[in-house]
């Protein structure tokens, strides 16, 4: 029998608010954080909307000596880590150093920092490249910086699987806790809203060129035309359930099931892997589909991907068989930060017994999905399923449920 692993602390940085409470209040109100890009002049690009975290002032949250050596996403991750520890009521200095670890997901590293140094290299020459470049832009930076800041010396890691990474990181943290680590801080906080990152995201061909924040990102709509990129994410504290109970911790819920699959090669005619990921995650949780009260969708807003996701949900749960929601319609898709923020929303739905809405879209009737539209829905939530997919064929599914 595997150890039960629970979430006892959460730190959120979202385009709709800093901290769990502001994010959750905005989700209840259906407030969207999707706006015209402010961080750079986007007028020359076909896509000009993003879910930017506009109220994050790094100097207020990150020690000044770390500012010059970190990318924007690392600063947000450092803040989220602080808040997660605070929320869990844990002072890491009082915990065994080798019993704490950190697992983050990244999609593209500290891309904006890298952009600056590439510019210095090609505009001025190699001697103008920062001494911090060697570690500020690589994918491991958030794990490394968080580990140093809080003295976490236990098993740690970094996973890269595009938008699926947020779930893969939480799953790896659960593994490490099951193997004896007392605590693992895990999830994703990500950002690439800079010209160089924007060009790269545009090349992926899945970014909406809609100009109206009110209808640019329309997952499951018949005229879905891509997503709006965002930034931010969430970091969660995972602990062994028994040890959390022993210290009297407040518990958000249990990470009960998880699975990852990969899609078959293009043109194979074989079914995409998402349905299998859902079934394996349910099996891992020891649950039937009937135990799931809500599904947090990946919500790609690319017609073919929406069809695949709707079919997977329908096959497992039946037509309109389970409420489905996509609060990321309010934040945009946050790269590797998206899925850990959705897990946060799922845990808060279990706590508060309502499900945040999906905004600004009108799902096609042929998907046969019961999408929670427009307003939050009160309903008994004991367990939720969170789905995430990464570019190239990554699928991940995670079941969270009320702690027993």
């Amino acid at each position: 029998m595997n150890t039960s692993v629970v979430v006892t602390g959460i730190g959120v940085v979202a385009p709709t608010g800093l901290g769990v409470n502001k994010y959750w209040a905005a989700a209840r109100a259906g407030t969207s954080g999707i706006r015209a890009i402010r961080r750079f002049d986007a007028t020359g690009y076909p896509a000009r909307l993003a879910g930017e975290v506009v109220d994050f002032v790094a100097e207020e949250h990150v020690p000044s000596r770390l500012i010059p050596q970190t990318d924007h996403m690392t600063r947000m991750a450092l803040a989220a880590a602080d808040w997660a520890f605070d929320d869990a009521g844990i002072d890491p200095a009082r915990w065994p150093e080798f019993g704490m670890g950190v697992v983050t997901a990244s999609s593209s590293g500290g891309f904006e920092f890298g952009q600056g140094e590439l510019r210095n290299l090609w505009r001025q020459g190699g001697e103008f490249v920062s001494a911090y470049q060697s570690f500020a832009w690589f994918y491991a930076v958030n794990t490394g910086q968080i580990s140093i800041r809080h003295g976490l010396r236990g098993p740690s890691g970094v996973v890269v699987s595009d938008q699926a990474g947020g779930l893969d990181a939480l799953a790896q943290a659960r593994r490490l806790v099951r193997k004896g680590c007392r605590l693992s801080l895990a999830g994703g906080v990500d950002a690439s809203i800079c010209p160089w990152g924007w060009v790269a995201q545009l090349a992926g061909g899945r970014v909406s060129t809609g100009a109206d924040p009110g209808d640019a990102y329309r997952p499951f709509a018949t005229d879905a035309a891509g997503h709006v990129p965002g930034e931010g994410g969430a970091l969660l504290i995972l602990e062994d359930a028994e040890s959390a109970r022993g210290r009297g911790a407040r518990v958000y819920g249990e990470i009960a099931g998880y699975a990852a699959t990969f899609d078959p090669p293009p043109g194979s005619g074989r079914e995409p892997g998402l349905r299998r990921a859902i079934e394996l995650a349910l099996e891992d949780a020891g649950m039937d589909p009937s135990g799931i009260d809500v599904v947090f969708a990946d919500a790609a807003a690319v017609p073919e991907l929406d069809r695949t996701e709707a079919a997977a949900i329908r096959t497992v749960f039946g037509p309109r068989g389970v409420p489905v929601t996509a609060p990321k319609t309010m934040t945009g898709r946050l790269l590797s930060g998206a899925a850990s923020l959705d897990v946060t929303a799922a845990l808060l739905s279990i706590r508060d017994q309502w499900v945040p809405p999906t905004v600004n879209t009108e799902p096609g009737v042929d998907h046969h999905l019961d999408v929670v539209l427009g307003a939050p829905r009160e309903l008994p939530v004991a367990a939720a399923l969170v789905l995430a997919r990464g570019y190239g064929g990554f699928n991940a599914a995670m079941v969270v449920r009320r702690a027993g």
Partner: protein
Amino acid sequence: MQRRVVISGIGVIAPGGVGAKEFWALLSAGRTATRTITFFDPSPFRSRVAAEADFDPELHGLSPQEIRRMDRAAQFAVVTSAEALADSGLDPAGLDPYRTGVTVGSAVGATMGLDQEYRVVSDGGRLDVVDHAYAVPHLYNYFVPSSFASEVARSVGAEGPAVVISTGCTSGLDAVGHAVELIREGSADIMIAGATDAPISPITVACFDAIKATTARNDDPEHASRPFDRTRDGFVLGEGAAMFVLEDYERAKARGAHTYAEIAGFATRCNAFHMTGLRPDGREMAEAIRAALADARTAEDQIDYINAHGSGTKQNDRHETAAFKRSLGDHAHRVPVSSIKSMIGHSLGAIGSVEVAACALAIEHNLVPPTANLTEADPECDLDYVPHESRTWPTDTVLTVGSGFGGFQSAMVLRRVT
């Protein structure tokens, strides 16, 4: 009873040797593959030495579209995966896709592709708001190095768990360790696992110049990588990949597969000290070594050979010498230790897997590869580093370690399959 995981196929691309056979020929002969950089004009840089692989993607069967779509590091990963699969004797068509997974380690992703593309979309660095009209259509594949895992999964037809592991210079050990974990827990029966990096580009050279991590021995490139030598002055940037077929032992045995070694134990720790600096005491690496030995149920004195991280920086070689003494006690002075980076340089995230390949082949051949260029003893590095020439040595159990920016310290134990 925990499942045992064995290596049943190896594919390697390394400087001086493409293919596992060539790679081992170089190591066992103690030849070096470090040279003056040829990929671009290195004259503006402080460190102008690197270990480049002689790799032609077309010769290895990649199609023109695959070559366009993939960064060089992805090409390495796909080609070495194919070699490993062929070496394993598995019929690719007979693989159960659902039970086959992929892990690929990489520290720096598609650096070459990103460097080249940035130069174009920014028009040589002139434009702040870069021009998307000049981006290659596959730029997203460079943006997210997860494309390395998706390319490998697609090429072998794996539909189980797939992920890139990116923990700096321990990525190559951690990706293999992660794959072992997935087989042990039952998430897959076969893992195509390993690591790749192709970082020899101006931005990488410049960023290591900025912290003087790489060698400045530009007038003597063939002897520039000098782990444990008193005159060492930094690492030599390298490139390459190693991918493995990892398999549940019972499954490999049942099909009569040749197996190189069992991956018996793995552990990783963080030093939580500094993004690039190491404390001289080697404390966290020692802790990782102890945990890996415990995972492998192996006593210190059973280790027959240590494949060191041995990057050739002042601080690293001192740090890990201390870690070996701290974790293995007196046995540290009795066991041969060597660094193959002396011959093939340091390929960042790839090297951990390339070194796992070296360890598996050391077990296969009962031969310890040498540390080249070790001519002047350093009083702080006083172990048996097998200088210059490989050594015939009964090698049943091997420890390999890695240390990376970000503070990562990893250790793995490989054992002859019995």
